[in-house]
């Protein structure tokens, strides 16, 4: 996990894109949980939208980092309380510049069986969008 430790700004925010290498490392978290039989993952990516005739090439993310950490703590707690079969909830959001096509959000939920993993992953995603103080600036 050395790569993960080096790049994480805190337990929820990472500088730059969420790389395939980071994703593969995050996916090994919980491998030692023998009761976990389902893993649901959501990966959000930067779209190359066209805005007023200009193509987005990247997004620069910023956050109120201390509040984002507090809100993410609350989201994890809420999801774990709402889904009894859920065994872990992981949220990682990018800060700084993420180019179009790269990943900027990673959510992973593990549970004993598949049903709650998928539902809790979606629930986590919706709460991240609603509650985490993160902003973006399109770069062209």
């Amino acid at each position, binding site marked *: 996990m050395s790569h993960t430790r080096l790049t994480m700004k805190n337990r929820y925010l990472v500088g730059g894109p969420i790389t395939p290498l980071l994703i593969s490392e995050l996916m090994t978290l919980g491998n030692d949980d023998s009761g976990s039989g389902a893993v649901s993952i959501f990966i959000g990516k930067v779209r190359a939208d066209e805005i007023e005739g200009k193509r987005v090439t990247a997004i620069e993310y910023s956050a109120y980092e201390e509040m984002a950490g507090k809100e993410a703590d609350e989201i994890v707690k809420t999801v774990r309380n709402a889904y009894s079969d859920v065994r872990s909830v992981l949220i990682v959001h990018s800060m700084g510049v993420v180019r179009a096509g790269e990943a900027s959000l990673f959510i992973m939920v593990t549970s004993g069986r598949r049903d709650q993993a998928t539902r809790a992953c979606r629930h986590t995603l919706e709460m991240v969008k609603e509650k985490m103080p*993160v902003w973006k600036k399109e770069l062209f």
Partner: protein
Amino acid sequence: MGTEVMVLFFGKAEVAAGSKEELFTAEDTAELRRMLLRKYPALAGIPFRMALNKTLLKEESALKKNDIIAILPPFQGG
């Protein structure tokens, strides 16, 4: 009178205020809100919410020493 508090600006509010942080002296969040809009009229175009010490304000609140107020435009994570 009033209490000096630190105000943090994020996202488009940072652009409107032209800085990341600034000290203001106000009795409560309602007075602070009025001061902010008077000083930075561009904030009126942003449907911002305020957080007091990292918690979203649900109603106006008195201010005390060392409080931190954050000006939060609509969240855009994901």
